[in-house]
């Protein structure tokens, strides 16, 4: 038990018991993710933004690797004066994190001197460095695509002998697998190369706005900073262009009705030359734009549009109908630009002095410099690269299936990446030894057990935080990435009153008030269930859900930070959205009537 004097607003890690029927969940995860007794003294919060579901064993790589990279750049590379990295722990399949702060003034001073030089170098050369970054990440995507997963046939390829290579194919199984994992690690290193600096610039402007305009909403600050031409909008833009092309080429009736993507493709293929032209345009759009993920790439089952065309193809008929009704589908970028300029100019004019305006110009200018990276890295990293990474991994899964180790490719994701390594080693060995693989006996029962445990963990209600209540939350990363402030903590720790039972409070992400029927989706794979005019209730809204935004009346999410793209997309669709409610998916049931007040950030359950 903790000796902390503060009233325990949240359970201590040591007080949390295993979810019923999920004993042994610990064995799915590496030792360093387990809570230790001394962790009771620290404040932890559930990172439900990135990890809204219990973690399959492989998928913990999406915590392990990013936290290595983020911490490296914060703690060691740029030496942020007051912030170190993040520790993560897993309990009942949920990822809890805590941010480490520097409080010793001497340490801060020392780090400040380093930070000043190193961050200064990046800010001073931002555009040139970002141009290099884009080249590097594109090269990395090409690299992961190019990795060859060897086939282990009866005999080695003759070329090995003819060219006297001196290395057999089984060696390359390991090498290829390691290169795949390494490329993922490199991607996350690149991801955090600029990110904390970008957030720092945003935080500075954000704090200025909050001081100058104490009542300004987070979304209004974001609107002044947000870019207009953002990569994350491209997949949806491409889809709209395909809808337009279908109408122009008069092949649009192929998308009438509610057939499968394949039946639609077959129907287009029968349209002769115009059909061919449309299919060619589709192929062109698919790479890279359909490498957009229906989630945000933190789970293996977050598939891309390329993997599953049903998401984009669900939107196509609707876009076609809108076009035929004479509606314009293009994002009104010019109008958005004018509106952003107007908002900036009006806030600027409301400042009290010219010197304040000069400071405002500097801070906003810095934001506009860094934001192309902040906004676009996500498509390159979490979407494009990550979708290619999972595709490559599945090739290893296929090898394990071929060798009889696994029953199904997807089963590989119930093994930690080091366990997959072991499974591959055994395949390499048995191929070399000429003996049958013994992997199936070992791995299959383990996988079956883990699948059952995960099922049990799904129903566990994770506390939003663990450990003693902190006095303040000042960490910029925590505020910017997870939207967690002192107010959030207060709201989490307050036991609900009877009136509260019908009301959920969050951030007003996009204005407007509507009533409608809830559709609660716990995972993005359920996206197909959404019906016209429903209110989407989900753990976190990812921008790639944009096509269904066209169908729904409003969006409500459990988690949402101030940088949330979902808010921007929702605003562009003129659709009310409340994000960061904490518990929407737990308290709302599909079919309930809701009122979503996007002006005030309030969701009311009407029945």
């Amino acid at each position: 038990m903790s000796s902390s004097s503060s009233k325990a607003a949240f359970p201590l890690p040591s007080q949390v018991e295993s979810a019923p029927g999920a004993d042994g969940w610990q064995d799915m995860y590496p030792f360093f993710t387990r809570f230790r007794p001394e962790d009771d003294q620290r404040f932890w919060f559930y990172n439900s933004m990135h990890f809204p579901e219990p973690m399959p064993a492989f998928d913990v790589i999406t915590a392990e690797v990013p936290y290595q990279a983020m911490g490296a750049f914060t703690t060691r590379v740029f030496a942020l004066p007051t912030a170190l990295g993040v520790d993560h722990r897993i309990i009942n399949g949920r990822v809890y994190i805590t941010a480490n702060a520097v409080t010793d003034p001497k340490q801060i001073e020392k780090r400040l001197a380093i930070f000043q030089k190193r961050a200064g170098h990046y800010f001073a050369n931002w555009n040139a460095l970002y141009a290099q970054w884009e080249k590097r990440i594109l090269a990395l995507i090409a690299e992961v695509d190019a990795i060859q997963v060897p086939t282990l046939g009866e005999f080695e390829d003759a070329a090995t002998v003819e060219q006297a290579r001196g290395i057999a194919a089984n060696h390359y199984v390991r090498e290829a697998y390691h290169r795949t994992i390494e490329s993922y690690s490199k991607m996350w290193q690149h991801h955090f190369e600029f990110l904390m600096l970008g957030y720092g610039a945003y935080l500075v402007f954000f704090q200025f706005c909050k001081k100058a305009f104490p009542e300004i909403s987070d979304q209004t600050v974001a609107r002044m900073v947000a870019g207009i031409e953002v990569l994350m909008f491209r997949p949806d833009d491409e889809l709209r262009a395909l809808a337009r092309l279908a109408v122009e080429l008069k092949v649009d009736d192929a998308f009438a009705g509610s057939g499968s993507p394949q039946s639609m493709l077959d129907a287009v293929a029968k349209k002769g030359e115009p059909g061919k032209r449309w299919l060619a345009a589709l192929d062109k759009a698919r790479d890279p734009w359909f490498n957009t993920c229906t989630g945000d790439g933190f789970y293996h089952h977050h598939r891309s549009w390329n993997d599953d065309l049903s998401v984009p193809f669900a939107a196509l008929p609707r876009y076609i109908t809108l076009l035929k009704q004479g509606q314009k589908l293009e994002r009104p970028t010019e109008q958005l630009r004018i509106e952003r300029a107007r908002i900036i100019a009006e806030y600027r004019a409301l400042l009290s002095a010219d010197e304040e305006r000069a400071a405002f110009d500097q801070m906003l200018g810095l934001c506009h410099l860094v934001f192309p990276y902040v906004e676009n890295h996500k498509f390159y990293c979490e979407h494009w690269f990550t979708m290619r990474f999972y595709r490559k991994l599945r090739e290893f899964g296929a090898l394990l299936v071929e060798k009889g180790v696994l029953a199904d490719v997807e089963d590989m994701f119930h093994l930690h990446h080091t366990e997959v390594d072991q499974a591959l080693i055994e395949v390499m060995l048995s191929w070399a030894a000429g003996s049958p693989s013994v992997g199936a006996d070992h791995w299959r029962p383990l996988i079956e057990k883990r699948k059952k445990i995960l099922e049990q963990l799904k129903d566990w209600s994770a506390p939003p935080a663990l450990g003693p209540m902190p006095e303040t939350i000042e960490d910029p990363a925590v505020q910017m990435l997870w939207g967690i402030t002192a107010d959030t903590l207060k709201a989490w720790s307050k036991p609900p009153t009877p009136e509260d039972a019908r009301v959920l409070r969050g951030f007003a992400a996009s204005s407007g008030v509507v009533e409608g029927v809830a559709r609660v989706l716990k995972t993005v794979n359920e996206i197909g269930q959404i019906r016209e005019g429903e209110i989407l209730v989900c753990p976190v809204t990812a921008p790639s859900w944009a096509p269904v935004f066209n169908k729904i009346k409003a969006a409500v999410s459990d988690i949402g930070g101030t940088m949330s793209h979902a808010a921007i997309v929702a605003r562009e669709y003129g659709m009310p959205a409340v994000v960061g409610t904490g518990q929407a998916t737990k308290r709302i049931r599909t079919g309930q009537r809701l009122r979503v007040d996007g002006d005030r950030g309030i969701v009311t359950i009407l029945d």
Partner: protein
Amino acid sequence: MNASAAPLVRWFEHLALGDRPSVGGKGASLGELTQAGIPTPRGFVVTTAAFLTMLDEVDATGALRAAVAQQHPDDLEELASASAALRTRIEAATLPAALAAQIAAAYTELSGGDTTLPVAVRSSATSEDSAEASFAGLQDTHLWVRGGDAIDAALRACWGSLYSVESVSYRRRLGLAEDNVAMAVVIQKMVRSRASGVMFTRSPTTGDRSVIAIEGSWGLGSCIVSGEVTPDRFTVNKVTGEIRERTLSEKLLRHVPEESGGIRSEAVPADQQKVACISDVELRTLVDVARNIERHYGSPQDIEWAIADEEGSGARVYLLQSRPETVWAQRAQTPVATPRASAFDHVLAVLGGRKAGP
């Protein structure tokens, strides 16, 4: 200036802020709003010249005024008797014939011949520094005044209110010269308000200039000013139009016209008590009007408004008053940030873990 040569009655449409010395702060502001095209009920001002003409008649030697000017703010008993001496004479005075005729003619023009058209009769004092030394709350306002005789009485009451104990002691405390004090009186068409209230073009609680705070309740605005109801509260972002706050309160009372003249308090029907007194569309109209007024004056304003349902034209928004916001305007402003040698220095200042200068 020879007071008798100055006009005794002036219409809003001919007035601007610069006319404050002759029509008082309220009259000048209503003139300015009218000229700026802000929807304001029509009306005219009985000028300070008229007041001074009357005062010269009731206090020909100036002895009563001199007695008031000598009062000490702490000697309330003495101050009360000196003030009462002058006030009683003003309230009992007969209006000079020329003035009475001009007011009657203006009322006929305002009412289009309706001899009982309801008007508001409101004090509009002048002093050397009336923008700062606000007389708000110390001056008389008479609502739903009908017909010439009632207007005369209300006019004299307004004049007399300049010599109420509260007004005199307030002036004596501030040491304002009595020579520069005069009372103009606004006579304005009455709006049969369905709802009314006040709005500030900055946040009264945080001083934020990007929001407009609006309070409103059913019926005439006097109900809010007197504090008899807790009004509905709305906060709207000026720049984006977002409604940031919407607090509906239980509005039990409203002020409504007494048909014979004056106003009365009555219970709000049960089904309206918890309902918003203005629609979102009306809210947005109010915001537009508030922004226009603020833009016109170039500084945050404190505004009184009313909404009336009119036959044929539906709901209409009217502005009854606008004055500069004084509370936040008087606070010392230190800039939130000042420019630095490079934009990155701002990041250092925030992430650096120490205060790196202002």
